[in-house]
């Protein structure tokens, strides 16, 4: 049967998938409402189409409809979905079941949620072909290992015998993409497969997807909100908004000459717009972190000898991949994780290492904003209680005064006063994050720690949040410690940048010094991994020396030598692995980096 299928692929001109006038309704409190309003789509074999838009645009719903599937609470009301001559809307469940997994497969956003943690990876890989009766278990396992080999997964012969928790996040994501290929489908639907990944991991996964889709002539629907990512993949782009088509064109055309205002906004949201460093007349140290070492339980030191100075009114960004210790640093500053050695002081006053030893005043001065606004807001509290609690707790505001202040805060975060009685479920992702910002502001803090505050948001929404944070800083003179893995975000908001790798500071200094040559090799890898809004970027990056050495490797914490040595394209044999890199200071004010190479050598190398 598999053989038959591949033989048909000669008829290139016939569309593989056709959607005509597709309308889908979703059940809301006010009854059925249209969430996809008449979409046409045509996809030929070997083509990739990108569906792009912010959340609520109906991209995922359309993606699922390509399998003839509607989520619970959704129904397809009108239109045709024709897959290789089969009308999926009238096809029986049995017919659709036979297609799904074998000829059309689906890759979800989170590999961690898509794999069953109780089964080995290869066993899950063979489940599809075996259940559909296409291959015997042994034959399927053999093919799986061959696919792992061709995708350059480490130890391809045995990696399938591992459990999902035993491989890194990037590897798991790649295994999931591989699993979608287990029945050699004609069409794969990718639903945000790289969202919320580090830039370096993203490249690793994009490479796998590209290898699978382009090299094997599979058609794909790629759903994402990130235009720069989909530009590397898709032949055509469909820009969607509120279930309606905004614009459809070839990828090159959309990037070069977008026809619609909304598409231009999407393009702008990714473009770097650099913040000019704020000039403070007499800088005053607000937060000082002095040779801090910390770790969990009896484990190794997750942070080693970290020293950072944060000046009042500035934004200091801490960047690095996951596992580099960024969030641990935030936990140390807030007192959730006591230090093993070293000191944290605020306004020159030493902060007790443990949270419960800190006074109310000290707690008030440091506030946090989290990555996932969904779990940072209590779903059972109204906005009034969420924002109001710090007001009464720290400032003793009650009744009218408190209400008045809540309204002022709502105004500052650009939300209408009527939102005061809403619960978090009635807010969008961006609005929730704004409420989190208001809650932090309500305490009237000195320092706000922003932990990946934009990485769970769509690019347009994220940009609006960054603008808001920037405006609030200008108006109120706030100080931010901004934790992020997204260098675009960092470039647009930071004054100072700290590059963290495996719990050590690789490089730190003014943004201009860090983001310009001479580069620390790790900074260079991070910078070269940020997707650019042009076609062909992925291929260029993949062939670069940094990427070849640096991607698809895990962050390892080491006691001796330089932790980056295995991923470094310029490492020096015998030296880097054994002796700690010396810390160099360049001419730029306060710019330091840790490397065996001198600034001159790295500058020479950057050319």
């Amino acid at each position, binding site marked *: 049967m598999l053989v038959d299928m591949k033989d048909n692929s000669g008829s290139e001109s016939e569309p593989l998938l056709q959607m005509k006038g597709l309308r889908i309704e979703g059940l809301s409190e006010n009854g059925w409402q249209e969430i996809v309003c008449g979409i046409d789509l045509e996809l030929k074999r070997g083509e990739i189409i990108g569906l792009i838009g912010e959340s609520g645009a109906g991209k995922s719903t359309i993606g699922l409809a390509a399998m003839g599937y509607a989520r619970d*609470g959704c129904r397809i009301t009108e239109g045709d979905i024709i897959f290789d001559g089969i009308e999926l809307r009238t096809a029986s469940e049995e017919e659709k079941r036979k297609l799904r997994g074998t000829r059309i497969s689906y890759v979800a956003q989170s590999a961690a949620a898509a794999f069953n943690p109780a089964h080995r990876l290869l066993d899950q890989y063979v489940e599809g072909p075996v259940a559909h009766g296409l291959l015997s278990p042994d034959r399927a396992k053999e093919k799986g290992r061959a696919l792992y080999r061709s995708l350059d997964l480490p130890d391809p012969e045995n990696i399938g015998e591992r459990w999902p928790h035993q491989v890194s996040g990037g590897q798991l994501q790649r295994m999931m993409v591989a699993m979608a290929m287990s029945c050699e489908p004609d069409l794969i639907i990718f639903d945000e497969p790289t969202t919320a990944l580090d830039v370096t991991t993203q490249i690793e996964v994009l490479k796998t997807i590209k290898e699978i889709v382009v090299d094997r002539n599979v058609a794909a629907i790629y759903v994402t909100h990130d235009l720069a990512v989909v530009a590397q993949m898709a032949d055509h782009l469909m820009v969607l908004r509120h279930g309606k088509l905004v614009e459809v064109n070839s990828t090159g055309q959309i990037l070069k000459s977008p026809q619609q205002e909304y598409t231009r906004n999407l393009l702008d949201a990714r473009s770097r717009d650099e913040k000019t460093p704020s000039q403070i007349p007499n800088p005053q140290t607000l937060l000082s972190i002095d040779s801090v070492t910390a770790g969990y339980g009896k484990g190794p030191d997750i942070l080693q000898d970290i020293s950072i100075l944060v000046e009042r009114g500035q934004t200091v960004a801490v960047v690095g991949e996951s596992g580099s210790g960024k969030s641990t640093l935030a936990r140390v500053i807030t007192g*959730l994780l006591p230090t093993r050695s070293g000191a944290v002081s605020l306004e020159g006053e030493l902060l007790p290492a443990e*949270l419960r030893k800190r006074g*109310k005043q000290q707690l008030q001065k440091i506030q946090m904003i989290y990555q996932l606004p969904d779990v*940072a807001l*209590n779903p*059972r509290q109204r906005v009034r209680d969420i924002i109001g609690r710090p007001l009464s707790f720290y400032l003793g505001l009650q009744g009218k005064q408190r209400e008045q202040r809540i309204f002022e805060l709502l105004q500052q975060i650009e939300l209408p006063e009527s939102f005061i009685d809403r619960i978090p479920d009635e807010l969008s992702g961006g609005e929730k994050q704004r409420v989190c910002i208001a809650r932090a502001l309500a*305490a009237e803090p000195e320092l706000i720690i922003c932990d990946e505050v934009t990485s769970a948001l769509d690019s347009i929404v994220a940009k609006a949040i960054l603008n808001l944070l920037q405006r609030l800083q200008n108006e109120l003179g706030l100080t931010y410690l901004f934790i992020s893995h997204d260098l675009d975000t960092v470039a647009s908001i930071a004054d100072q940048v700290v590059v963290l790798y495996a719990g050590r500071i690789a490089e730190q200094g003014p943004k201009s010094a860090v983001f310009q040559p001479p580069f620390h090799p790790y900074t260079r890898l991070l910078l070269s991994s940020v997707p650019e809004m042009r076609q062909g970027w992925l291929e260029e990056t993949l062939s670069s020396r940094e990427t070849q050495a640096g991607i698809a490797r895990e962050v390892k914490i080491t006691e001796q030598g330089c932790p980056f040595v295995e991923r470094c394209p310029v490492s020096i044999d015998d030296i880097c692995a054994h002796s700690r890199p010396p810390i160099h200071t360049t001419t730029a004010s306060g710019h330091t980096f840790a490397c065996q190479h001198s600034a001159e050598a790295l500058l020479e190398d950057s050319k």
Partner: protein
Amino acid sequence: MNNIIKILLSAPFSAKVGMIIITFYLIVAIFAPLIAPYGEYYLATPIAYEVWSSDYPLGTDNLGRDMLSRLIYGARNTLGLALTITVLAFLLGGILGMTAAALGGWVDQILSRVNDVFMAIPSLIFALLILSIFGTTIPYLIGTIVILDATRVFRIARATAMNVAVMDYVEVARLRGEKLGWVIRKEILPNIAAPLLAEFGLRFCFVFLFLSALSFLGLGIQPPTADWGSMVRESAALIAFGDITPLIPAAAIALLTVAVNFVVDWMLHRSSGLKDVS
């Protein structure tokens, strides 16, 4: 208020039936003195085990007391006691369970292990032992069953609260410097209220059955207080003569259990967030 009515109206048929039955029991229990034809202890006739008649709709018991009146007062005693015990068990188990989840560490370890020890003892044997040593007074009865039931409540409260305690909003409250009581009351409790409420209904049934079982064994509510479990015991011999009277208090127990379970099922379904696919 309007909201509550709307939710109640949206309940499925079985839950509505359950609610109507529960309401009926409550009315009977609350207005027992007005409804019952005779007093709780009133010896209506010198004839024991009188058959059903217009004077005694369900006949009389072994001492010649009116069965129907005893049944109605029995609702009051058994229901009231079961409710008191369940509420106390939830207060004890719930507060300790949430504290264990919120604090974690050694507090959690100690509370959980002590709880495990109590759970390891078979509950009926434990209750028989305590009640035969200390006597079958109402305070001991309540105390024993509360402790036994609180262990179950502790487990579910701790497990559900653990899921909430790791949320960022609980961390926010801790970073703000909130006290433990506030964190439990404002951040954790509202988010685990639904499963706890469902568990409350189920627990109530078990307490009710347990009480009846103890009464049947002669260690529960003591005569002359009317109680369904002991009523079954006192008139059990009648079954041998083809009289169904002893089955009536038993049926009253069964019906209430079924009704409560109907409502609990619906609440569990609601709290699980599953949507009906139409």
